[in-house]
């Protein structure tokens, strides 16, 4: 058992036009695409939206991880196809798959290119309290540590004859105790250690906090945001005027 799949959303430092954007601009990106995807339920417009993401992914140098995150959806895709074709139509099913892919891509682009440090800063700049933003970034920081710990616990229990597969729902739940209890206890101990270290470094000092890092919404962020908003306006226009759109836009599968 491995926890590899988490990597599909893990930030990696890279030099690219996407990485250099302000996190807020990228949040606008994620939201614009999510809203656009929700506007339509026909194949062609959703396909166009989906395709328009691909150059971003390529220029952002995150193609590999993005493909991984899409591949992670395969089970869900199968589920949607079966359900929708049974109850609605294949065309609708395919459209829905594109919709899901767009939304997941938009957020995977966000998480893959936003430095979690900056994430906390952008939360603060959006008037979230510091403690909230900090605990958010702390959670990010400890994902790999806790994943590692979980793996160690699984290994330790398996080494004393514990078997993962058990039949029956109740048994499965019961069978999780030997893993969950040590994980919870270790996490509590860890939380104490972390808190102790934080206290020792003046966390919660009464003085006004200063910020060594700052994020800046620069010209390129403005240009990118305006571009995104324009796209959104065009999509909304198309949506409203859909009745007068050319036939190819509303094309459906013949089935």
């Amino acid at each position, binding site marked *: 058992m491995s926890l590899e799949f988490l990597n599909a959303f893990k930030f990696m430092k890279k030099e690219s036009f996407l990485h250099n954007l302000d996190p807020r601009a990228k949040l606008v990106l994620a939201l614009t695409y999510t809203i656009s995807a929700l506007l339509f339920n026909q194949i062609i417009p959703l396909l166009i939206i989906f395709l328009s993401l691909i150059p971003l992914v390529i220029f952002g140098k995150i193609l590999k991880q993005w493909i991984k995150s899409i591949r992670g959806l395969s089970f869900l895709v199968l589920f949607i196809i079966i359900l929708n074709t049974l109850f609605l139509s294949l065309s609708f099913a395919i459209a829905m798959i594109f919709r899901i892919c767009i939304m997941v891509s938009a957020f995977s682009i966000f998480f893959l290119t936003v430095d979690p440090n900056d994430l906390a800063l952008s939360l603060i700049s959006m008037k979230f309290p510091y403690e909230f933003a900090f605990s958010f970034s702390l959670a990010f920081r400890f994902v790999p540590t806790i994943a590692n710990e979980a793996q160690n*616990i699984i290994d330790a*229990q*398996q*080494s004393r004859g*514990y078997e993962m597969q058990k039949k029956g729902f109740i048994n499965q739940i019961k069978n999780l105790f030997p893993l969950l209890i040590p994980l919870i206890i270790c996490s509590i101990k860890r939380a104490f250690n972390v808190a102790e270290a934080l206290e020792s470094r003046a966390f919660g000092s009464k003085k006004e906090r200063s910020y060594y890092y700052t994020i800046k919404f620069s010209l390129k962020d403005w240009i990118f945001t305006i571009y995104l908003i324009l796209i959104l306006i065009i999509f909304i226009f198309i949506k409203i005027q859909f009745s007068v759109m050319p036939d190819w836009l509303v094309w459906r599968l013949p089935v």
Partner: protein
Amino acid sequence: MITIYISKDLPLIIIENVDYVYPNGTVALKNINLNVHKGEMLGIMGKNGAGKTTLIRTLNGLIRPTSGDIYINNENTNSKSIAELSKNIGLIFQNPSHQLFANSVEDEINFSLKNLYLNKEELQIKTNEILKKFNLDKYRDRSPLNLSGGESKKLAIASIICRAPEILVFDEPTLGQDAREIESFIKLINTEKEKGKTIIIITHNIEFAFEFIPRTILMESGEIIADGPTQNVLNNNFLTERSSLILPQTRQLSLALQKIGFQDINKAVSKNDIIEYLINFLRNKTTSVQEE
């Protein structure tokens, strides 16, 4: 001098050309070849990240080699499940809190025994026996979470030894322990050794390895770079430097003594050899002074 136990039988553990590459492409083990005989005690040393814990995880199938084979008791481990392999190989991990979860010390032992499918009576007898052996019977009903660090380490070891595996593998058993705890650990492995158990110990504790483990392998970047009598391996400046260890203090001292004219001190290997050498030297000196 320490002689390695060499048997004419086939080794109990045979590791042949084992490689392990992580899914992300990192090479963790490279062309590992290792034989361990029944009843042997083997140390594994090397810096953090050298592949020591990956190597021991291949023994009970937690990690399956990317290529190469591991035989235990002449059987390829390839086709066997972790549960099957763990009956024979007991891995004892560094941190006891990674495995203690039951309501009581007794239940903790029962959990380990449960997977051996004993009947109720046998289970009771075995549990009593092991709790007594480890001096844990007074804590029988106590929650494992309320034990001290040393006691919970003992319980973790007991929870593996109660399954009576033929091979015991320890990951850093002396980490953060004081002399008393190390002494009681040594006592424990000596009794297991007397029973004919094969023991493998990963350790950073140079002096401990130097005095108590007859044979050691050194690992570096996933490879075994040395395999031999511990005192030869650790006294080799070139090897210890390559694997980021430091020379044992005995060796540092005898080298320094040699420099100031104690010529034949390099014959002294262990702490006791040096003591004996110095006692002899000082006694002879006082008698020669008296003669004058």
